């Protein structure tokens, strides 16, 4: 083990972590070098971090989201020939149900665009305010079309490597001092089990419903029972020990947060969906200033093998939930000046040509989104639109991946989250900065 790590690390919990792991390994009679864990930061912590770094909200669109419905390349004629029943009409179409032009080449479907006033739903206001960036023909270089392989690779931030179990956001948190050194909770995954994206993050817990994070029972004895846990789990083992201690502190912390009486800014209304409620809870936590610096939120429903119907059916509803929830978060949190960056990714896109049941099967390239005052938005960026003609497609069926999603995330990690340790957050990847931040 390299001693420099501990000397140069300004982060107390990181020091404790590495020392404890070292002792455990030594006690087991195994050479520490042989078991040097893959998650341990091999980095030098800089003393000078920007103190005004953003909070990050990371969204995973699980199931393989159809980028060609979310942000439609209407000027590519092959979109219409490939999708005879599920295409969205062009902005200048005579019909009332049609797309809304973004830049002359791409358009939002109505489910994504929504209205034109912030807080009334839809993402057009954030786009027009140049706070929402779309990256198209993006995804990962690994060609797996398996949901769980592709999700795992994307969350870990590196394909294939079975030794790497931590997530990119977990490693970000592990390699930067806390925004608030006394915060009991630095990050949460709004889920029952910690999403892989966050694994490895210090003071990071899965909390499925932050509004109901309690040990229950009689109020009169609650403090006494929590004290029991705190003492009892102090003798436990990692990772349960830290999780339990963080949990007891977090129960007390969340008790002090007024979720039910929360008033949104700008009249924002969060949809009463699991995604909308999750973002609302994250908004409350951010505004409560309790030291949260990252949240992972998931939205499912994207695995549209049949009856996709982006105009009125299942894809329409999923997109509407996605856009209205994020629009509420934009109006409530970002438009009001909080330093927050949102990113949204999906494991892969879907076939360009629709299948025999008016759906689309697993594909490759798709879209991702970044939103915040520090994002150079109001644009749809691609690296030379690869085209939708059959000969332009990967394996003759899929939109090519021209931008590795890590290029976008790495720039945000460095420029918006103030973490220079990119080779630790995204091992074996040298990112190309595309100017997605301001």
């Amino acid at each position: 083990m390299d001693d420099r790590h501990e000397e140069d690390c300004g982060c107390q919990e990181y020091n404790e972590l590495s020392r404890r792991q070292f002792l455990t390994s030594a006690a087991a009679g195994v050479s520490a070098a042989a078991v040097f864990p893959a998650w341990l930061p091999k980095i030098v912590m800089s003393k000078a971090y920007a103190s005004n770094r953003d909070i990050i909200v990371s969204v995973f669109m699980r199931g393989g989201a159809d980028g060609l419905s979310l942000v439609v390349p209407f000027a590519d004629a092959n979109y219409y020939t490939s999708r005879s029943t599920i295409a969205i009409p062009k902005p200048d179409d005579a019909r009332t149900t049609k797309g809304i032009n973004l830049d002359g080449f791409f358009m939002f479907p109505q489910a994504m665009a929504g209205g034109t006033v912030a807080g009334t739903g839809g993402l057009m206001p954030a786009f027009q305010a140049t706070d929402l960036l779309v990256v198209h023909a993006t995804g990962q270089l690994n060609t797996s079309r398996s949901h769980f392989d592709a999700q795992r690779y994307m969350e870990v931030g590196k394909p294939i490597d079975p030794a790497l179990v931590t997530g990119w956001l977990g490693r970000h948190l592990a390699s930067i001092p806390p925004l608030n050194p006394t915060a009991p909770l630095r990050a949460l995954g709004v889920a029952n089990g910690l999403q892989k994206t966050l694994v490895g993050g210090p003071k990071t817990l899965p909390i499925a419903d932050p509004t109901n994070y309690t040990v229950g029972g009689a109020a009169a004895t609650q403090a006494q029972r929590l004290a029991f846990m705190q003492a009892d789990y102090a003798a436990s083992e990692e990772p349960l020990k830290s999780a339990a201690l963080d949990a007891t502190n977090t129960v007390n912390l969340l008790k002090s947060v007024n979720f039910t009486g929360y008033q949104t800014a700008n009249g924002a209304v969060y949809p009463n969906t699991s995604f909308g409620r999750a973002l609302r809870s994250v908004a409350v936590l951010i505004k409560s200033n309790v030291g949260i610096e990252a949240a992972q939120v998931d939205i499912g429903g994207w695995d549209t093998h049949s009856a996709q119907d982006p105009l009125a059916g299942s894809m329409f509803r999923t997109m509407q939930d996605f856009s209205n929830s994020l629009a509420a978060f934009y109006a409530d949190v970002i438009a009001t000046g909080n330093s927050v960056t949102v990113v949204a990714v999906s494991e892969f896109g879907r076939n360009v040509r629709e299948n025999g049941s008016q759906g689309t099967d697993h594909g490759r390239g798709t879209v991702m989104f970044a939103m915040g005052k520090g994002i150079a938005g109001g644009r749809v960026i691609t690296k030379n639109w690869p085209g939708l003609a059959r000969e332009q497609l990967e394996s003759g069926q899929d939109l090519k991946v021209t931008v590795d999603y890590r290029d976008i995330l790495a720039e945000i990690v460095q420029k918006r989250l103030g973490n220079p340790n990119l080779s630790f957050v995204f091992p074996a990847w040298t990112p190309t900065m595309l100017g997605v931040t301001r």
Partner: protein
Amino acid sequence: MAPNENVAAFAEWESTLGRLVRRATYGPTAAEMAKAKELGFQGYLNYQLNYTRINDDAVETAVASKWPLLAQTSDVLFSSDAGQVRQQLSEATIYRAAFSQRQLYHRMVEFWSDHFNQDMDKVGYLLVADMRDVIRKHALGKFPDMLKASAHSPSMLAYLDQTQSRNTAPNQNYAREIMELHTLGVDGGYTQDDVAALSRVLTGWTVQGRGNFVFNPAIHDWTAKTLLGVTIPAGSPSLGQAGINEGEQMLELLVNHPSTARYISTKMLMWLLTPTPTETQISAIASVYKATGGDIKSMIRAILNDAWLPVAPMKLRRPFHFLVASLRSTNPTVTTLTTINGQLNNLGQALFAWDTPDGYPDKIEYWAGNIVPRWNYANVLSALKSTTSLAVDTAAYLAGSPDAAVDLMDQNFFGGEMPLVTRNALLTYIKGGTFNDTRVRETLGLAVSANAFQWY
């Protein structure tokens, strides 16, 4: 936080027999420990392995009366309320795990239902037959039999889109997962070309009616295929049902493949013994697999030996294990398990709801963070005294002193091996207020919440 996968057991857990009971059951109750002591190490292991000799009539009678849909035909299940079917299968699964004395058998039922994971949102009632005819039938049988039964299971074929596959458009989903997840393992030495070829071999394996496996020669790809070093010559539709033999031949090849022996051995070692099995252990169990034709009992007998158990690290109970252990320990009067089953969702392990085919993780770093819902659940359970759902009886705890109550918890929750640190903490709590039903229930909740109760 960093996963430490080698957690030394509590000093109080040094007895090899106690270690065996914790590994072979959903919790060492007083009765379970007494049985083990009566039979001795090998005797108890044999008793659990020869599960059909353990009379299970009382449990099956209760299951039949409380959850009658499970005995119904596919035709009846098809027209039944999907939520009801799901709830009945889930509650019966909890009930059997908690109250059947065939404990090791049910630990393996859980293991295999993750190995052959299916999401009931996708397969619905078909899973009832899969759990009965694949998982419960073969959980302690021969792995090759189970794999083949699974390949003929309408539920599995529907789940992994085999039912969508045809000669003109083969679907590779099942062909990939049967090698990646069910037999060879992801590093088992197959290629993408093998996946494609196997998907063509399996065209025609599909489902008819309300859930009947059929081989349909009309959608089988009869051209020649080469995979995993085997060449299957071209056939013709005139061969009809004989076309299924291509697939049967490949299943036979898969179950006899050395990678399968290693992969299944590794997973079973991780489930029963240690999150970090050694190469020596993997090789030893893989040899047993090869020598016995994948006999699961023989493999378990080789894994749970009195040399490896004493040095095995503790494992964190997954939520289902934790919840079932809490039922065994509190031994409530059960009218329904609806409330308890609902709690599994909060705990993060709703049954038959993991949507991807890899099954719920058995990784401490996945589960450790979700501890508050366990504490919340412990409180819900210990407070239950409902004659229409579930009632935890505190009379025995209240019959003596607070010390005697904690002694009884030691027996019921830890089989007499409650760590001292847990005992002292519970004693302090129970004596910290008036000794009454409420205090006892809170203390029972703390016993379920305690650190020591999360491990096995």
